[in-house]
């Protein structure tokens, strides 16, 4: 092979270097290029230079879009998607309601809970049910009331009684009735022998007050 023929062959082969590097050459052409490269150092060097430029291009840094671009693009796209009046109104309504939805729900739930507590605290539990009352406060109640004799001439007797956490009478005060020594003695005895259930606060016994009213009932016959 003379020199002219060799250069012509190199020139022909080099025309296919781009396809070869891109992996787009046919099988026959690929084999021809490889065969030529095996015998021609100059073409090998040229292929290396082209390969290096290709890798230089591929190694150029990829630019990243700034974060605000994505947000602005989303807003623009959203505006574009809701161009009609109804769509715009719906989006505005949603945007207006969404931030208020959580506090509003929390407010409604709190109101329901408070209302529930308030309603249950006023209910007086029934005494013959063995359940522990769960309301906030309960008044003291009479368990066993000792009998008391009232004279026929006595008026109705009203007494305010203070009861401690153990259900015992601490003191009492006569609100209505003649405070005669005899009546006071009978009231002392009655208080001593009566049993009371103490008042409760959050389920725990505590001191409390209750009003007792006595009236003599006469049955004829």
């Amino acid at each position, binding site marked *: 092979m003379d020199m002219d023929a060799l250069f012509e062959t190199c020139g022909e082969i080099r*025309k296919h270097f*781009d*396809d070869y590097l*891109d992996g*787009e050459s046919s099988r026959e052409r690929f084999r021809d290029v490889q065969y030529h490269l095996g015998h021609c150092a100059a073409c090998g060097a040229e292929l290396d*230079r*082209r390969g290096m*430029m*290709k890798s*230089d*291009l*591929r*190694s*150029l*840094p*990829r*630019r*990243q*879009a*700034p974060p605000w*671009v*994505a947000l*602005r*693009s*989303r807003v*623009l*796209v*959203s505006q*574009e*998607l809701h161009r009609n009046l109804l769509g715009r109104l719906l989006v505005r309504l949603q945007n207006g309601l969404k931030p208020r939805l959580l506090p509003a729900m929390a407010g409604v739930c709190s109101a329901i809970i408070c209302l529930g507590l308030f309603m249950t605290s006023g209910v007086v539990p029934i005494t013959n049910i063995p359940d522990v009352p769960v309301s906030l406060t309960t008044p003291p109640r009479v368990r066993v009331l000792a009998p008391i004799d009232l004279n026929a001439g006595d008026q109705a007797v009203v007494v305010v009684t203070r009861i401690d956490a153990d259900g015992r009478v601490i003191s009492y005060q006569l609100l209505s009735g003649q405070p005669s020594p005899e009546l006071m003695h009978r009231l002392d005895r009655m208080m001593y022998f009566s049993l009371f259930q103490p008042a409760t606060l959050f389920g725990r016994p505590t001191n409390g007050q209750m009003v007792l009213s006595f009236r003599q009932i006469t049955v004829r016959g």
Partner: protein
Amino acid sequence: MDTLHWLDVTGDRAAPLTEEATLVQELQAGSEQAFAYLLGVYQNPVFNLLCHMVENSADAADVLQEVFLKICRGIRHFHGESSLKTWIYKIALHEASNHRRGWLRRLRREPFSLDDGQGEPVMHSAQSAEETPYEALEQAERRELVSRALASLAPSYRAALILREMEEMSYEEIARVLDIPEGTVKSRLMRGREMLRSKLTGLLSEK
């Protein structure tokens, strides 16, 4: 949106064909979620393409928004003759071309500063433990030269080279994006590489 299994939105790869069809359906139905997904997948590669294609890379962000607005407006007319990826790149190159024309018109009218076009300062730091600072600097300078040589090419050659080398598109895909025959793609690539090589040789000899 329940039927669609979304891919990793941080990746730069496009959705496979079957998922692409579902994505197109969702986009045509006007789903904001589908558009958010589309943005997540394509915004970085399209932004990179635009940075190389518009004369002033600071405008690339504005052009990118225009591109996605055009996609939003035109998705109803997309009938799947090409892939979604090539359609998006086609719009991006068209918008870049429009912007370039406007930019050139403005450039003729407006005064310019000598400080313009000096580029941002490049920070050189070693990329890996094996790379010395000197090698890192050399690499960065080489990349800068390649970037400048690429920017000096005519837009038609530049676009073909970027799509082939950076976006790794096949000749067929490039032909669809640029709307030219495959033979012309090959010749543009070959001619573009030759021009880039000669420009790089010139720049390296200047150094």
